[in-house]
């Protein structure tokens, strides 16, 4: 790591302080420690074991996109890494300041600029908290319809940068499908806006370059998102399948016949017997599936009726409304301690996505790879199928090691080996490196393999956009 002399640091600090103002810059050791970890297991484990992490040299809280632009220009001049920080709720280490440098906390950019009730859009600064944005929309009978588990802590920019998803993305789309346009500060400090509508035939769609860029192509400062009216009706249901294969087929038929469920959440038997039991209190054997339809009451009811007929054809037992409604009410409880997976356990969400013809094989292969290879560690594998598309589904799977090595370095090595196994199994069986948590630091090493011959092209883009390599180096597979 670069060890900056105090003199040099002070010279840089003075420039940065002039941009954001003295109250909005920190080099406090306490702040540095807090900002040294995001929601990933690796840095949390590291701190838990009493080990120190790399910290930013400067923590800045700019109030405008112009300030961000000026900060980035200073960073270029001094070749300082820049790490954008929203809610710090990423699970992939994407916001870790591993090379020190400047950490830009975007949360002062938290204004709603416009709620357009005719176009059904909201324009807001990227640092706004997700739940607060949703509450503001609800006051007008509207909703972003983007309900990730991280809504309480993530920011709008954080929704977009890793291509996040939400509980009802099956119907409403991922964050990348909801965005109409945005503003971004480029790695050279230029501020640009994408076109004001997302669908057109007016040249290449460069907006999508920034979705999934996780800060390596710039800092998103503002976004316009589509919104919906709060649904008149929301019908929840739960069913139980004996076989995961039948449940997957039920989901596939519902999606491909355009029955438009807002949620299909299918828990494999291991998840049903562990997480569903511990969080929701249901003792069930088999594959527990939650279904939901919303919108116009008559349409939702008909869609549900058709969906339930499919489930019945495939041997599901109807558990009724209550388990579905209970799941909906407690859908985020899985992420609160003490119910959430937590230290000192080792765990990882190795989620992926593939097409319907491959999803069963992918699930079986990953399960076997984890459980067989790490038998000595008694590694457990649980999974649920969380987000569904017309062409395939996301497998939200996890490994758990309840008694990992006590030594931090050994634990990290084991963790990374398990991830290697999981991602290799994904890639070899038609899955992607990740479906909605992003790549960050944790999965960066898999990017060349994911993209193959396209990887040099992406690297050349990065080089063109960020010639000094200052934007979030080490993440998403891009170095300096």
């Amino acid at each position, binding site marked *: 790591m670069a060890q900056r002399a105090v003199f040099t640091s002070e010279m840089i600090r003075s420039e940065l302080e002039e941009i954001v103002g003295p109250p909005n810059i920190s080099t406090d050791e306490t*702040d540095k420690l807090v900002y040294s*970890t995001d929601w990933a297991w690796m840095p949390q484990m590291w701190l838990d074991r009493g080990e120190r992490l790399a910290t930013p040299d400067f923590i800045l809280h700019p109030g405008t996109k112009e300030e961000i632009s000026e900060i980035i220009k200073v960073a270029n001049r001094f070749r300082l890494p820049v790490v954008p920080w929203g809610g710090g709720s990423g699970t992939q280490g994407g916001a870790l300041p591993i090379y020190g440098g400047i950490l830009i906390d975007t*949360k002062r950019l938290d204004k709603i600029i416009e709620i357009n009730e005719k176009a059904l859009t909201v324009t807001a600064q990227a640092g706004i908290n997700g739940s607060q944005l949703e509450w*503001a929309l609800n006051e007008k009978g509207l909703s972003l319809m983007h309900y990730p588990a991280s809504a309480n802590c993530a920011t709008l920019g954080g929704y977009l940068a890793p291509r996040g998803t939400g509980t009802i993305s099956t119907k409403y789309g991922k964050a990348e499908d909801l965005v109409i346009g945005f503003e971004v500060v480029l790695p050279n400090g230029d501020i640009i806006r994408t076109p004001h509508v997302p669908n057109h035939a007016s040249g290449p769609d460069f907006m999508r370059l920034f979705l999934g860029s996780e800060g390596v192509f710039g800092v998103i400062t503002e976004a316009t998102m589509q919104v919906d009216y709060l649904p008149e009706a929301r019908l929840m249901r739960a069913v139980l399948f004996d076989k995961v294969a039948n449940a997957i087929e039920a989901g596939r038929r519902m999606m491909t016949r355009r029955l438009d469920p807002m949620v299909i959440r299918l828990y494999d038997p291991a998840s049903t017997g562990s997480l569903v039991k511990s969080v929701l209190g249901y003792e069930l054997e088999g594959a527990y599936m939650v279904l939901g339809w919303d919108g116009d009451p008559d349409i939702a009811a008909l869609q549900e009726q058709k969906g339930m007929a499919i489930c019945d054809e495939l041997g599901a037992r109807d558990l009724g409304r209550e388990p579905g409604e209970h799941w909906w009410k407690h859908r985020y409880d899985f992420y609160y301690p003490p119910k959430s997976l937590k230290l000192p356990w080792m765990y990882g969400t190795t989620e992926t996505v593939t097409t319907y013809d491959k999803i069963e094989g992918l699930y079986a292969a990953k399960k076997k790879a984890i459980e067989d290879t790490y038998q000595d560690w008694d590694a457990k594998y649980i999974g649920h199928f969380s987000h569904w598309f017309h062409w395939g589904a996301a497998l939200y799977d996890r490994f758990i090691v309840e008694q990992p090595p006590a030594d931090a370095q050994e634990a990290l090595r084991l963790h990374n080996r398990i991830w290697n196994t999981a991602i290799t199994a994904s890639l070899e069986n038609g899955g992607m490196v990740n479906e909605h948590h992003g790549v960050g630091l944790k999965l960066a090493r898999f990017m060349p393999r994911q993209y193959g011959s396209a990887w040099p092209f992406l690297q050349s883009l990065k080089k063109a956009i960020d010639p000094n390599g200052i934007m979030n180096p080490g993440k998403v597979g891009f170095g300096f």
Partner: protein
Amino acid sequence: MGSAEIKFFENVIETTENCRYCLMCRHTCPVGLGTHNETLTPHGWGLIIASVKRGLLTWNAQTVDALYSCADCGNCRAHCVFDQPLPHAIAAARAEVAAQNLAPAVVYELNELFKKWGNPYQPQAPEPLGGSGNVALFVGDEARYLWPSALAAALKLLKAIGVEPILVGEGRSNGFLASSLGLFETAKMLAQAVLDDVKASGASRLLVLSPGDFYSFGQLYTERLGIAWPESVAVQEVTVLLADKLDAGALKFKPISDETPYAYLDPTHTVRVPERVEAPRKLLAALYGKPGLEVFWRKDRAHPAGNTALQFTQPELSHQLTMGRLYDTLEVGARRVICDDPGTLSAIKAGAEQVRLEALGLYELLAGQL
């Protein structure tokens, strides 16, 4: 420190192990939202305490300053689905810091004031108990010294429904502030003095003027101070009692025809007592003939005003919280802000004048329209 106290601290500080990496209440923390600083959030405080435990940080000026930036408003716990008592854990950490003489100097100054005068506002001992009876009213220090018109108005309203309570704790802090500062022994002393007064009054019903008092007697004493509240004494907020009487037809008000748009400001600690939110709104709707405007940070997500311990340890932050509530009120188009809690009213008064909002006490408004 006795072994029972050490166990309490250990059990409570264990909460920080749960909260240090959890971000699920960050959307409601007023300090985090106001400062935009990751460190000054529930997870930040949890991580600081956990990091001191692991030797990654020590208690020094920086860490103590951060530790004493939590408002102890209860928003985090109120929005935790598993009810993690983080405010108690932070208070317990402050107690450890205070015991090591590392707390901000003002904490020790306040300790002396609490011990000598029973309150931090006036060098005056609490009024002695004035008698005995079935119903008592806890006055406290904020109503006595910061917003006395609320007490007079509340007594007038209570008389109108046939209640003439004995005044207890007149000029005495309920113990919350001391506990929030980490002065647990002093807080227990104050709490015991309140309990002694209540017992001596012979009251089986204790009325209070604010949700902060209701929370202190109903939860804080037991959970944070290990002091049991007597089961024979039922606690009720005056506002809630008045709303019940209004519903029963036992209380009537002359309507106000003033068209000034108004908003009710949920007092500090409302999130700890969410069942009380409709009572003041009902009373105001009866006065004005229509409901008031609703601010964004309301009801079960109501932010505190500046009447927490921050007013002493972090006055700028305290002011920022207060102004935040007033801007929230302005943003919905209100020109008048109404509250029942003497402490909240005292905190917002100066700021309200600054932004040309009329700040009125609910009890006074109601008493004027009997």
